């Protein structure tokens, strides 16, 4: 039988999908980007539970995005389902390869090494003419099993695609969290020695987490590229990675749902802040993060747990 969390999550996705045609265009576009980025955040949550914070997750985000862009530019492949899977797979392969090195490091060394790798990709993208150099290049619109929607319909179709990807990812990651490999995140963070002496390799556990988070980031990047219809080296830049870490802190590592709520909250706050204070929107974003750390140190996701606890305490 499905758990209470799964049912709430399924209902939320169904309401969003059904209600999307009623929403204003700007909100659909904003939510599309927010949920695409939420996939990257979900990957960061997986690593953060183990005590690892990568400052270079934009590496996989950019690989997913550029894979989609390059497929559109150099091949006849246009189907969005195929290109999104291709973006996720490319990022997963790179995560698997760099994982052999990254999985051996912890704490700040892990963070800085991942940052260094993303900056290498940034450097390559900036200097490579065939990859669009600093300007990047246009991404083909893509088709949905041969259907090529235009205008507002395309935005809606993309939103549904992103929602579908997020729903699948949420179910799989929730299942992973309940598995032996997923649930060992806290034991690994607490005491690597004990985990090793119980008979399992901590490096291999972390390597798997890196590959999963890479696949999620690649998928997020691919979907973002389709939504924006443009890729550029900024997608691999360290500030992009920093933005994902920002959202992860805002969301918290408590649950799968937190990644989606956190990402949507971030995009909404940023959008409103830019509207209200075009010259100083960072001030509002920074204050929002500061307040979250002060009053919700375990992120927005902990709000639900707190409310539930309070309800249980006041129950007769």
């Amino acid at each position, binding site marked *: 039988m499905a758990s209470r969390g799964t049912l709430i999550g399924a209902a939320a996705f169904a309401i969003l999908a059904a209600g999307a045609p009623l929403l204003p265009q700007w909100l659909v576009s904003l939510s599309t980007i927010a949920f695409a980025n939420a996939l990257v955040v979900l990957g960061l949550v997986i690593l953060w539970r183990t005590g690892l914070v990568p400052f270079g997750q934009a590496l996989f985000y950019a690989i997913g995005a550029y894979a989609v862009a390059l497929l559109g530019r150099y091949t006849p492949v246009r189907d969005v389902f195929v290109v999104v899977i291709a973006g996720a797979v490319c990022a997963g392969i790179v995560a698997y390869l760099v994982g052999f090195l990254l999985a051996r490091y912890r704490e700040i060394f892990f963070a800085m090494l991942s940052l260094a790798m993303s900056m290498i990709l940034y450097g390559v993208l900036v200097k490579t003419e065939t990859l669009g150099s600093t300007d990047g290049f246009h991404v083909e619109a893509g088709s949905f099993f041969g259907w090529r929607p235009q205008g507002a319909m395309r935005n809606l179709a993309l939103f549904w695609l992103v929602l579908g990807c997020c729903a699948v990812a949420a179910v799989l990651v929730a299942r992973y969290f*309940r598995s*032996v*490999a997923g649930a060992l995140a806290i034991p690994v963070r607490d005491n690597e020695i004990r985990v090793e002496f119980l008979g*399992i*390799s901590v490096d291999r556990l972390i390597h798997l987490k890196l590959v999963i988070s890479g696949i999620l980031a690649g998928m997020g990047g691919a979907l973002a590229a389709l939504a924006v219809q443009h890729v550029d080296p900024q997608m691999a830049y360290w500030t992009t990675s920093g933005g994902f870490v920002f959202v992860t802190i805002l969301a918290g590592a408590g649950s799968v749902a937190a990644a989606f709520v956190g990402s949507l909250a971030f995009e909404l706050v940023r959008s409103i802040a830019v509207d209200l204070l075009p010259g100083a929107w960072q001030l509002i974003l920074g204050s929002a993060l500061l307040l979250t750390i002060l009053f919700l140190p375990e992120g927005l996701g902990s709000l639900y747990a707190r409310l539930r606890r309070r309800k249980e305490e006041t129950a007769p």
Partner: protein
Amino acid sequence: MSAILSVRDLEKTFGSVVAARDISLDVPAQQTVGIIGANGAGKTTFVNMITGHLSPSKGSILFEGNDITGLPSRTITRLGISRSFQVAQVFPSLTVTENMWAAAAIARGRDSIIARALTPLDTPEAKTEADAAMELFQITRYRDARAVTLPQGVRKLLDIAMAVAGSPRVLLLDEPTSGISIEEKFGLMDVVMSALKTRRITVLFVEHDMEIVGRFADRVLAFYDGTVIADERPETVLANPRVQTFISGTKPAGEGAVHA
């Protein structure tokens, strides 16, 4: 009785420092071996080499006839040699039950990480095994307490219970009573040793308290300066003048001096 664990000419050096040398011995199945020695005598180095935490510089270690010298600790654990630590190694932010689930789940599964990602942690089998282990080590009443809040003695019991989760044939206990008050030591060792006897586990335990060693060991290895200077029944080893001079301190150094 055939040896479950055999060690031949074991040596460990760190640069010019010789931490262990010329160690050769056989441990029959289900024997309880006490390991004594002053600080720096090589006891923990010996335990670390057997359990794969350190790779020997020379010599070999055979477990059930198979060479396990230099294998990684997790492989040695999976083969059937487990250990506890001088400072209890538990997962402080998890409850006692969750600690035991984690240990049981790791112990039960296959080596493949992918298979681990597809197996739920809280299977009925893992839960049953965790409950049985908590019962055996008498820590059931702490089941919902976070490990960080546990008294030292209970934390030690949890550490050992977790080490036993994989049904090892050999268990090495590194100072199981360190940090425990004198009044609690014997009670803790009674619980541990009776649990291990029930599971028919061969035990090697490092201990400073000679009373504990005399009461629980079938055989005692006395370490001094990186090597074994006595290897006999407890009463014989504890009466050995070299042991009394260099380890137990029951004979003042210089009196009837025996050179090591």
